[in-house]
């Protein structure tokens, strides 16, 4: 029996086990929407803006082990999706975005709602396809899912002309796919792994530095095992939150621009660094010249060879799937007849750095501190909630004070820093985990970038909790204007804010306003207890609160701006610029 292209597409998605498609209809995809109407294998979620569809699909994927799927129409539908695609690309999230295209004979003729989707998304996808022939449709979809989820994951765009969706062909779905040009690595090089084991055992000041790759590669167990085995201090990137339990004694917190004092000091002073699924991002190590203090030896495990030696030179590069490589590394350490060097003094030093508690803040009785809200949320939810965030100060507070015990619970736009991510992401997570608590920590500026999704949440009964840390400023912009622009608050003040409580109610949800510290915990408890309602909590927080510690752009990791209670602390002098030549790497 012959099927239309649209039917073939829906059958392919069903074959891939797709549960939800997030999308928005339009002229070029009407045939597909009609086929969706006539099937019952997966559900479609009608968002209010295509950007939100992609973020929701992205977060659905981040919180589960599945590939997220979004569907948009041609032209403006496609361009609206681009921010979401770029967000997923920067964080290596497996996702398939299907976009409609105008009829093949009209391509290139500036037809109504035409845009070169393959061209426009080329720099921000892992790969993309234009399906020119219905005979290739099924195989292309198979390839798209395979490419998205294997190797270093990423978004794949499939652009389908409308007349292809209307044509008919026989349907057969390939069981597997072979691509001669695409064979992602899996196993690490045994010799390199042996070398790494040796280095780690000899290290007097070792450090395990983990990133989003550990979360994506499901390697949290292996990370825990190797850190236990060698008693390693563990620091994580923003993307690696939860990959090692944030409440574990060996976890010294997030590092980098807003990392803890102890994490940054440990990073800078370690002698052997085991980097796993982390890419030495500029928000993590600042500039390479300051980062490297000699005799630091770096072992770098990553599935993507191009992530290795991109920003810093590496002594032992290991390309492979982090889970497999770590398992092999654990084996190599166990088999080694070498005794591990004594690292008690190293831990003493780390504890001394940890003692002043660089995340300490003062919660008085008058004004709510944003940190306090996150801390209370952590207590109220017992650390078990999925937390999505937008981008800005609230994101950093969420990262610093919600001590994720598990991976895949922290859902945020790390690489691209996309405001408007939080609410649609919460939607995607809640659909993937209907019984879990899902909280979106946001700010009054970020939430307004995709606030229309409150409507989608109503339509599909998605009872997430929105925690709006409302300081009436673009908080991070204000902080930078204070630090670098002489307090000239150019366009960072949000005037004419909506009444968020009424707004939430207008969309059919529960709104709450909290302006006293004493009410924070009670409000959170009340909101979390309303299991089947979306609750929008508008916390009026301190307008002056800043994120500390902070490493300013261009400075070394140990040159932190510290919170007030640590300003008189004697800090080690800035590490000298390393002798190794990094001239061309930054």
């Amino acid at each position, binding site marked *: 029996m012959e099927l239309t292209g649209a039917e073939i597409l829906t059958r392919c998605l069903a074959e891939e086990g797709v549960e939800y498609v997030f999308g928005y209809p339009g002229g070029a995809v009407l045939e597909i929407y009609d086929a969706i109407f006539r099937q019952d294998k997966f559900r479609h979620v009608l968002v209010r803006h295509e950007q939100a569809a992609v973020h929701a699909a992205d977060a659905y994927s981040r919180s589960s082990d599945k590939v997220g799927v979004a569907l948009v129409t041609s032209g403006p539908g496609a361009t609206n999706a681009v921010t979401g695609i770029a967000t997923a690309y920067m964080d290596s999230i497996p996702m398939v975005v299907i976009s409609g295209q105008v009829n093949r004979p009209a391509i290139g003729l500036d037809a109504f709602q035409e845009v070169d989707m393959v061209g426009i998304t*080329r*720099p921000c996808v*892992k790969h993309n396809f*234009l399906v020119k022939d219905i005979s290739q449709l099924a195989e292309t979809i198979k390839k798209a899912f395979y490419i998205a989820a294997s190797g270093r994951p990423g978004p794949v765009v499939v652009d389908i002309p409308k007349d292809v969706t209307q044509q008919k062909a026989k349907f057969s779905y390939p069981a597997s796919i072979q691509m001669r*040009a695409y064979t992602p690595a899996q196993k690490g090089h045994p010799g390199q792994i042996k070398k790494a084991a040796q280095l780690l055992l000899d290290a007097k000041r070792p450090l395990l530095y983990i990133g989003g790759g550990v979360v994506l590669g499901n390697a949290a167990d292996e990370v825990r095992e190797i850190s236990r085995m060698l008693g390693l201090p563990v620091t994580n990137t923003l993307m690696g939150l939860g990959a090692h339990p944030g409440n574990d004694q060996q976890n010294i917190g997030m590092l980098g621009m807003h990392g803890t004092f102890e994490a940054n000091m440990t990073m800078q002073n370690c002698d052997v660094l085991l980097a796993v699924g982390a890419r030495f991002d500029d928000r993590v190590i600042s500039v390479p010249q300051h980062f490297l203090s000699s005799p630091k030896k770096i072992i770098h495990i990553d599935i993507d060879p*191009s992530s290795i*030696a991109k920003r810093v030179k590496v002594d032992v590069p290991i390309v492979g799937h982090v889970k497999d490589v770590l398992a092999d590394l654990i084996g190599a350490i166990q088999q080694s007849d070498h005794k591990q060097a004594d690292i008690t003094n190293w831990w003493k030093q780390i504890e001394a750095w940890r003692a002043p508690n660089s995340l300490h803040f003062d919660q008085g009785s008058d004004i709510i501190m944003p940190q306090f809200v996150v801390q209370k949320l952590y207590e109220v939810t017992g650390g078990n909630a999925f937390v999505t965030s937008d981008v800005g100060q609230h994101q950093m507070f969420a990262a610093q004070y919600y001590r994720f015990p598990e991976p895949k619970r922290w859902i945020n736009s790390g690489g691209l820093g996309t405001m408007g991510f939080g609410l649609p992401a919460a939607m995607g997570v809640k659909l993937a985990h209907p019984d879990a608590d899902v909280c979106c920590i946001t700010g009054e500026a970020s939430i307004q970038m995709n606030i229309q999704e409150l409507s989608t949440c109503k339509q599909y009964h998605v009872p997430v909790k929105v925690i709006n840390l409302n300081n009436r400023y673009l908080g991070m912009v204000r902080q930078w204007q204070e630090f670098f622009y002489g307090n000239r608050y150019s366009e960072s003040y949000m005037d004419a804010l909506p009444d968020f409580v009424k707004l939430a109610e207008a969309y059919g949800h529960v709104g709450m306003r909290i302006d006293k510290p004493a009410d924070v915990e009670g409000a959170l408890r009340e909101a979390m207890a309303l299991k089947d309602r979306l609750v929008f909590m508008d916390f009026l927080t301190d307008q002056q609160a800043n994120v500390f510690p902070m490493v300013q752009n261009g400075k070394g990791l140990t040159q932190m701006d510290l919170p007030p209670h640590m300003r008189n602390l004697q800090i080690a002098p800035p590490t000298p610029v390393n002798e190794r030549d990094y001239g061309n790497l930054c």
Partner: protein
Amino acid sequence: MRHILSILLENEAGALSRVAGLFSARNYNIESLTVAPTEDKTLSRMTIVTTGSDDIIEQITKQLNKLIDVVKVIDLNESDHIERELMLIKVRATGKDREEMKRMAEIFRGHIIDVTEKTYTIEMTGPGHKLDAFIKAIDPALILETVRTGASGIGRGERILKV
């Protein structure tokens, strides 16, 4: 340093723009780029001349390998190789210049492939610096038009790039 990269890639629509886009997006330099299908119609062979430190060339190679369409990449600089470029150059050839131009073309082993009363069109192949030398050797006022391809390169001897 100058490097010459040789790439086998799937002969598919958009493959060239993925490679070119990679260079522009990542701020790498392309000096020249030539591409054409190979004896296997499903594969194209591309030669890119680029400059950069060893670290940058390493990154370029890794990033190229990451592209789904790219089957293989080698840096021809790593061992002996041959490079050729093709130039078509149209020159004014009248009076005493006519005989002189013919002699020059012969010295550089070029072929005159089109003749009019006033012009010669010379075809010349060789490494880029030889073509440069020819241009330098003749009177610039006589050059009417120059067309050059980018370099094509191949390893010497047994070294081959194949799937």
